[in-house]
């Protein structure tokens, strides 16, 4: 028993690390072909992602929205649902936050901020909750419906900021009225990283305990493992589906609130900045483990943070950082097939893995 846990832990640490190193090697070869010095590139990546406190803040700033966004895919995945509606939930959450922030603009700042957060959580939650309901009551495939809801959310955003919510003074970039400066979320003292990072970390930790250490999470994992068995055991599968979907959407919604309240100060097309799609990547790389998602988000943040210096110092094209990201993710996903190969004693480990604690 202990042995199997140990070997699994060793695998869980060594395989991703080896995958990371291997992808760096591949990327180095790519850079050499593109005419850059691979070691110089490695040094630049390190320097601009983790090299100094100033650079690391850049990484954290980019990682912050990805943590919350990744939960929107990671949580339902434990229930066996593949939901990719993160982008839509972020947008809807942002809209909800702006609406709340503008309605209550005269209340004390703390109240306004809490209201914005609650509104975003509710909007995002209901948005993805609807996906769960469609799945449960009408049997609609959740992947497709959540993907399509992204487009609806973006259309809704464009309609609202271009029409009913539009600030007439925003001529060439239609936007909502701005939230009062005093109601904005500040930065974490001593840094330039906004509170989204703390929300993300807290949400990931809560999600981890919810899934791994509570009866509710256990029920969700059972239903994810075998839905018929769960039904026979008397688990309320429908309720579980909708609650998990609600929680997932509320995390992404909160990410939208942070974008509005800490970065843009208003709702406009910038809300739709692909954090949702990056969040899906993070969730899959983290194998839907919320704690791992925080680390993966920081890794991805670091990769994105290094994109600028690759262009400026090495004259590499702007797509280089995407090549790097793609290589890392492909290699990490491929490395999944290596689990259980090195320690042969486990029988049926692969099938159980998603349903069993790590």
């Amino acid at each position, binding site marked *: 028993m202990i042995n199997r846990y140990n070997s699994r832990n060793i695998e869980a640490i060594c395989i991703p690390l080896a995958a990371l190193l291997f992808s760096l090697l591949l990327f180095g070869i790519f850079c050499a072909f593109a005419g850059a010095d691979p070691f110089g590139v490695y040094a630049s990546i390190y320097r601009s992602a983790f090299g100094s406190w100033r650079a690391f803040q850049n990484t954290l700033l980019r990682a912050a929205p990805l943590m919350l966004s990744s939960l929107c895919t990671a949580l339902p995945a434990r229930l066996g649902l593949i939901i990719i509606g993160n982008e839509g939930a972020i947008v809807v959450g942002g809209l909800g936050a702006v609406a709340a922030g503008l309605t209550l603009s005269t209340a004390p700042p703390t109240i306004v901020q809490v209201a914005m957060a609650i509104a975003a959580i509710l909007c995002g939650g209901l948005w993805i909750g609807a996906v769960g309901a469609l799945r449960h009551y009408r049997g609609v495939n959740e992947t497709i419906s959540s993907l399509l809801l992204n487009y609806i959310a973006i259309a809704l955003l464009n309609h609202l900021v271009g029409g009913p919510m539009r600030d007439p003074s925003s001529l060439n970039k239609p936007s909502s009225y701005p939230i009062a400066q005093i109601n904005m979320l500040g930065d974490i003292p001593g840094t330039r990283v906004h509170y989204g990072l703390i929300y993300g970390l*807290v949400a990931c930790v809560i999600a981890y*305990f919810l899934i791994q250490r509570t009866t509710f999470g256990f029920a969700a994992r059972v239903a994810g493992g075998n839905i018929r068995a769960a039904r026979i055991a008397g688990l309320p599968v429908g309720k579980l589906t909708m609650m998990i979907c609600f929680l997932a959407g509320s995390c992404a919604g909160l990410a939208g609130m942070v974008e509005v309240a800490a*970065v843009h100060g208003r709702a406009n097309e910038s809300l739709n900045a692909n954090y949702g799609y990056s969040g899906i990547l993070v969730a899959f790389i983290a194998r839907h483990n919320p704690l791992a998602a925080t680390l993966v988000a920081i890794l991805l943040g670091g990769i994105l943070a290094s994109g600028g210096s690759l262009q400026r110092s090495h004259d590499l094209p*702007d797509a280089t950082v995407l090549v790097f990201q793609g290589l890392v993710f492909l290699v990490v996903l491929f490395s999944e097939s290596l689990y259980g190969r090195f320690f042969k004693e486990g029988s049926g480990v692969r099938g159980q893995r998603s349903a069993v604690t790590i």
Partner: protein
Amino acid sequence: MSQRIYLSRRQVVRGLLATTAFGVTAKLGTGCTPTPETQATTAGSGDNPLVIGFIYVGPKDDYGYNQAHAEGAAGIAQLPGVRVVDEANVPETTAVEESMRNMIEEDGVTVLFPTSFGYYDPHILKIAQEYPEVQFFHCGGLYQEGVHPDNVGSYFGYIDEAQYIAGVVAGHTSQTGRLGFVAAKPIPQVLRNINSFTLGARSVDPEMTTQVIFTGDWALPVREAEATNSMADQGIDVVTCHVDSPKVVMETAQKRGIFCSGYHANQAELAPQGYLTGAEWDWTQVYTNYVEMIRAGKTLQNGGIPHLVRGGLQDGFLKLSPYGNAVSADAKQSADAAKAEFMDGDMIVYRGEMKDNTGKVVIPAGKNFQQQDQELEKMNWLVTGVVGNVSS
């Protein structure tokens, strides 16, 4: 093993949930006290090479908005004593703030050109406050005296002048009398281009119409191709556009065998047969002017460089793509005549009485708008002859 700690585990969970909940609220509480960052910065502001940073929202080879700016940047990179650093594909989020910061701190950039409209508020405004000694020049942003930081300036060109001339060429070339305009969003800058293009065409033949299709966003290649195809199906034989990358529109026009007129940069190589001309930016000229002013010791902060810089054909902000093979001698002649009027400053595109396409008078008789008029930057109507409506 797990049984022994099972109960306490639950308590641990509850405890953790409670503390995190407390933590969140506590953090929300401190979040409302703004914490202004005061960083002492030492950006290289000597007489060493002038380091200029450019940031683009899309790729540098998009045959459009970003390529036009990248060409401008490449133009001034050749000037002696100037070093250009640039980054492409930077989204309008905290990412652009980080790019600006890195350019300033790592490369010693003292002059920045973040070129996308959406970079301005809040990103440039925020970073400009942090680095008061760096100058930020933004394309298209509306600088407000006294409200925005002193080290921020804005520049833009009246590219509708070039669109007007392209309209003249289109008016001469079209056989069916129907033109097409693929537009991103019904915002003032775009509407003004549509109107000027149409007015140019109607100056040749008052019966000309322009069908406009709004795709809804700046880069939607599939929609742009669909729009161009549906226009070709309807019998429209000249198309132009205002989207970030006109590439797809031009290629589709070429495939369908209809004429096209470019925008932002030169797209002649994409449609060798049907490319008539195009409304292009000449950012090299604009950026060279800025470099000369900065070299002469002028800055935004000391008032040497105006905060708002605008210009048209006359000021060298724009150029037209060389006429394509399909452009007749007549068309060239009237286009050149219109261009000469712009160069002399005699041309007034928006003169009363002008009606919109619903029949409402938008410019009363006797009222003429000069190109510089701020009123034109708030345009929210489509002129007679345009088929389409601003709310779609």
